[in-house]
């Protein structure tokens, strides 16, 4: 464990009643790393993310974020698997809340810019139920990105989006994380997405989720065109390896 580790899990287990959802898992995420968690439905990915966010306490082991037990809302932005927008606020009002909690002044220009970043225009004044599911999810992403937290936790944020928007946001997130050096923990079902985004991909076994594969992705993080990246032999190799681990998860860790 080094002091530069953004997240450290040591022997972490979590059970809901007598159902063990994850663990034991030991894992260190160095600062600036883009870690992608992949695994079958119900293997405990969301649970793991909630443990790192501080919304769940491990039933065994310890979780540290920036060296201390995590507290929700301190130092980590979180995109839940569901949009979780506040229906009593407009779309813009939802973003304004994030800025206000961080002690910042929400200006119209700022809100518009944040929405623009996830490809949304002219929705700030709408009610949250007057936009589509995919648009709601993008608002949730914009809301989590509104404040520059050193750690970003994302639970299948692009699952509900059309292919075109998804690719755009993937590229955007990849670039932004590399440029800002933020640490990301990203959950997905998609092998392609995992290899494209991650500087490291961890595949989990079916419930209880344990580490089945821990693979560093050796591809350039900046200054490369997405098409070219996907064309690299290393990309294809990593995809094959992660794909195989997802289909035949064995416990190696």
């Amino acid at each position, binding site marked *: 464990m080094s002091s530069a580790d953004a997240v450290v899990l040591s022997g972490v287990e979590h059970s809901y009643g007598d159902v063990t959802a994850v663990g034991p898992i030991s894992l260190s995420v160095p600062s600036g790393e883009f870690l992608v968690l992949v695994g079958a439905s119900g293997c405990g990915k969301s649970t793991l993310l909630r443990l790192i966010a501080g*919304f769940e306490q491990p039933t065994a082991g310890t979780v540290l974020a920036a060296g201390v037990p995590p507290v929700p809302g301190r130092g980590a932005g979180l995109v839940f698997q569901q949009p*979780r927008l506040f229906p009593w606020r407009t779309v813009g009002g939802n973003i304004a*809340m994030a800025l206000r*909690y961080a002690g910042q002044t929400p200006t119209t220009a700022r809100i518009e810019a944040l929405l623009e970043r996830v490809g949304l225009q002219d929705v700030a004044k709408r009610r949250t139920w007057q936009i589509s599911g995919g648009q709601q999810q993008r608002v949730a992403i914009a809301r989590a990105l509104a404040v520059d937290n050193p750690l970003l936790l994302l639970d299948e944020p692009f699952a509900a989006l059309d292919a075109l928007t998804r690719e755009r946001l993937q590229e955007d997130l990849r670039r932004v994380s590399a440029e800002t050096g933020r640490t990301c923990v990203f959950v997905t079902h998609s092998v392609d997405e995992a290899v494209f985004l991650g500087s490291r991909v961890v595949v989990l076994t079916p419930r209880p989720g344990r580490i089945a594969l821990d693979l560093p992705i050796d591809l350039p993080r900046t200054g490369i065109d997405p098409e070219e990246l996907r064309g690299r032999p290393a990309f294809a190799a990593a995809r094959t390896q992660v794909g195989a681990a997802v289909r035949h998860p064995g416990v190696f860790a």
Partner: protein
Amino acid sequence: MAVAPSATLASPRRKRRILLRLVALVVLYGLWEIAARTTRNPTFIPSPGAVWHQLIVTSTVHGGIRGYSGHLLIEHLGVSLRRILIGSAIGVAGGLVLGLIMGTVTWFRVVTEPVVTFVRALPPLAYFSLFIIWFGIDETPKLWLLSIAALPPVAVATAAAVLGAPTGLVEAARALGAGKWQAVRDVVLPHALPEIFTGVRIAVGVAYSSVVAAETINGVPGIGGMVRDAQRYSQTDVVVLGLFAIGLSGLLIDALLQIAEKRLIPWRGRA
């Protein structure tokens, strides 16, 4: 713009509903007229015409006499409405605070829940006697009665709504950095508002139905006092007029509350 399609869709249905209500009113009026004519006993069933006549009599100064018992109908109604307004306002405010604490502090809920349920089960007239003994026969016991009657519905609704706060949205606020109190203010409370508002409508209704009871003692001016005096002198037409005044103004106030609700809580049913 966004609501246009549903509005055009609803309008023929709305027209039919209004028509249906008008027909029902005419039929009721007809039945009333027939009943009054066949019984031929205005003390038992006064005719619609007699009630209409009383409306004019009680609303004007005639031969030096002002309305009924020295007050115009509108003055009786105004005094009662003022009592209802003050009583409901105090009851709603108290119920809101009580319900919020009940919903957030477990031991407080355990202690107060049976008390609130107990008071809610009592007919207001039952504790009115107590208030008369404590506060005399003027304005104070009446306002106490209405406040106490209006409080439980709001308290119960608020407590239930706060208890049912959506974990997911509270977590979302916490994840954005909201403190516990901020989460209550920004999530729990707005989420509870629709239910609280239903509680308020019930509370105002209870205050309405209690005002006549509150005005049985020293109730003039006041619609309840007017009805009671009229009953004493067998002026059934005035009694019926009083009932209409209370009922119709009640309908109006509930309609106003519903409009306010639509405006203030557009997210009703969305959370």
